[in-house]
């Protein structure tokens, strides 16, 4: 009944369930910083571009609802909504979902629900844009698709991520990508967002010390 407890984001698909301390040792290895990929300005530009792409692709934002995946996806969704409101003058509804109960690795490892699912509008007939910080194996996105289905039947579901780091294990791709980032499986991509994490906004690659 008990699974080994992971110390950090060392398991594929674990990117939404890791601790908030970026310096924490992961899975018994010490992780160290390999590269800073984005700084705060880069991240701001990526948000702005993705927001524009969402509006362009959907011919406006009238039917769009942004649904963030806990924890950082929710913060990203709010930033995208603010950007869309700034240049388009439309207040896009923002929701939050927790995919913990829909994961396919329940019982295989420790899973902690992150917060209550809150979607302020009926998704039926709308365009749902799922928002997360990192796309990795695709298993979190798959769980999110299942979770969304239980809330209603959207006209379309799209996926927006700040980083696509590759290593997909399922036939899933993102519609909007901030940065394609080739990584090794053992590495860890850490997105830092003000309001969720300490320090400045940024994206970093961390890896186990050899």
């Amino acid at each position, binding site marked *: *009944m*008990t*699974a080994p*407890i992971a110390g950090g984001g060392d398991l594929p698909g674990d990117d939404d369930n890791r601790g908030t301390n970026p310096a924490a040792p992961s899975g018994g290895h010490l992780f160290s910083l390999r590269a800073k990929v984005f700084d705060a300005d880069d991240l701001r530009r990526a948000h702005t571009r993705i927001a524009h792409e969402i509006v362009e692709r959907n011919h406006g934002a009238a039917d769009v609802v942004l649904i963030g995946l806990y924890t950082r996806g929710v913060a990203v969704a709010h930033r995208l909504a603010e950007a869309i409101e700034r240049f388009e003058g439309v207040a896009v509804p923002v929701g939050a979902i*927790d995919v*913990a*109960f*829909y994961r396919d690795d*329940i*019982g*295989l*490892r*420790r*899973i*902690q*629900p992150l*917060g*209550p*699912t*809150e979607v302020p509008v009926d998704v039926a007939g709308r365009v749902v844009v799922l928002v997360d910080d990192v796309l990795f194996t695709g298993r979190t996105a798959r769980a999110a698709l*299942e979770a969304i289905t*239980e*809330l*209603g039947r959207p006209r379309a579901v799209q996926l927006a991520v700040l980083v696509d780091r590759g290593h997909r294990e399922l036939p899933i791709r993102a519609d909007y990508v901030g940065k394609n980032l080739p990584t090794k499986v053992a590495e860890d991509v850490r997105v830092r967002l003000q309001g969720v994490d300490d320090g400045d906004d940024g994206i970093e690659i961390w890896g186990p010390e050899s």
Partner: protein
Amino acid sequence: MNDLLSIDDLGAAGIGDLLDLSDSFVEVTQRDIPKIPALRGKTVVTLFYEDSTRTRLSFETAAKRLTADTMSFTAASSAVGKGESLLDTVRTIEAMGVDAMVVRHRCAGAPHRIASWIDAAVVNAGDGRHEHPTQALLDLLTLRRRLGSDSFRGLRVGIVGDVRHSRVARSGVKAFAAVGADVTVVGPPTLLPESLEGWPARAATDLDDVLPELDVVYLLRIQRERLGSALLPSLREYTSRYGLTAARAARLKPDTVVMHPGPMNRGVEIAAEVADGPASIITEQVANGVAVRMAVLWSLLGSGGPVA
């Protein structure tokens, strides 16, 4: 946490984590399709040696909303009448492949004994006069959601009625005290514990004395089987001294909350208009019971580790 047998298993932090988790499940129970696949392939059996339709249904509903399979065993319709021992019954059920056993038994400690026999998780759904931990958890959840605050510190809680024979009171006192509330048990001396040793609470025998100070009035069900004995001579006398009548309710502070674990004896421990009035959160208690039991089952079977 392998089992949930007593509020003592949790501590203040464990209680807080389970309540946070329960908030997620409250949202699930309010959906159009209140079902999630979290415990697909798990089997939960309810093993009830004492009648309690509402608690059994609440656990079964919780398991079903998590997509677990459920089985139910009641002593009345079982081989117990043919002389099968508790050990044999439990081993037989476990051999069918169950992941959790929800146990109600008239003997205090029966769930603890069962937990020592089997690998499946055991949840105490009420054992004798001892404990009923999920009731205490759902009470805290309901109160927390009404108050809109995570803090119970300094909250004045009065638990009124047959405290001596009540497992609801025992778990409730422990849970309220663990989260920092200030608990007073109120009732006639014959229905209060002989000694308060081990109870983190004060005792009072005059309800009218303490009533105006209380933030929460928690009424216990008067068990009619005690009626007529030396412990409880008459219902009318009980109601006149300890019932929450409309006249007494009028003396409560404006934001005081009224709770009851059910089933209610309207007109005995609580007046109908108080039970249905704005101060009452009795209906919410029932609804939240399912969410709390979902949280407990998820913690034991799905989370892959202890809560927190």
